[in-house]
């Protein structure tokens, strides 16, 4: 199969020229699954190499990314509090009366999208050309933390199944999908964009083999 545009873009951003060229050359005789497995490996490997080569950038990434997400969490807490017992209660009732569904899930999805996108964008801005690689490192760390939180949350529910009443499960489901899907997608979308190739120093490669098209 011919590599899709997204796959080519990711390879160009995260992989060396020769590696990208090899995958483009080999892809027509391979399956879609094979290609995406290779692309994911290139993204993971490229990000790991970048984070190891730029330790200061890596540390800055976790502080900046974590800080932006923390600010969004504070904002979400404030908004949900105001929706429940504050000045936004009238908006909530108006919404319920006219639209017929709860406003909280929509708020969560919107905040998760905005939080993800702004985190990715901020990482791209502060880390310059190293942005996409550090964003992937941050995303991996975030997903590990999210999975641990989810595991602890599931354990708490199993210990006390009546902790959440049935009507709250929709909000729980939206929160989980927002945290695990919408926010990570936002981080990736925000961190891509105007970025160029990685600036990771690679081993010196000698120029030569002119006219190798006959190979």
């Amino acid at each position, binding site marked *: 199969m011919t590599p899709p545009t997204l796959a080519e873009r990711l390879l160009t951003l995260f992989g*060396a020229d020769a*590696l990208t060229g090899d995958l483009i050359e080999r892809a027509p005789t391979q399956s879609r699954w094979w290609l995406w497995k290779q692309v994911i490996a290139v993204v993971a490997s490229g990000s790991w190499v970048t984070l190891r080569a730029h330790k200061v950038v890596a540390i800055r990434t976790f502080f900046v990314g974590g800080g932006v997400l923390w600010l969004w969490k504070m904002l979400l807490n404030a908004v949900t509090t105001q929706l429940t017992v504050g000045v936004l209660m009238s908006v909530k009732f108006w919404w319920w009366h006219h639209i017929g569904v709860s406003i909280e899930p929509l708020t969560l999805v919107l905040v998760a999208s905005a939080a993800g996108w702004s985190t990715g964008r901020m990482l791209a801005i502060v880390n310059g050309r190293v942005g996409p690689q550090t964003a992937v490192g941050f995303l991996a760390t975030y997903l590990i933390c999210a999975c641990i939180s989810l595991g602890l949350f599931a354990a708490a529910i199993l210990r006390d199944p009546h902790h959440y009443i049935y009507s709250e499960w929709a909000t729980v489901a939206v929160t989980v999908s927002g945290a695990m899907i919408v926010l990570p997608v936002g981080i990736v979308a925000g961190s891509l964009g105007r970025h160029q190739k990685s600036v990771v120093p690679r081993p010196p490669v*000698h120029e030569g083999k*002119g006219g190798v098209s006959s*190979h």
Partner: protein
Amino acid sequence: MGREFLSHFELLILSAVMRLSDDAYGVTIAAQIERSTGKVVIFASLYKSLDGLESKGLVMSEVGEPLAQRGGKARRYFQVTGQGVRAVKAARGGLMRLWQGVPALEGGRT
């Protein structure tokens, strides 16, 4: 090379590059390893190992000219250095001595 051991994958790569001689680049090296082992090669791992072997002085590489069928990207051709050949010979010798007289490897026990 010093006292460092070659990993199994590094040994496969060096052997494939020696076998391919002038036509050893990512695609052909991966194909050679896949043919001989029956396992799928992850190109990112292949290049990570090749970079490692190059920094140890066991292989050297040259970049060819950009080709249209590769999206305008050039091939990177690899060649095993004298030090690399000695490392493979040493590894082969060590493995042969280790395998010699092992009943499970001689069809006795499995």
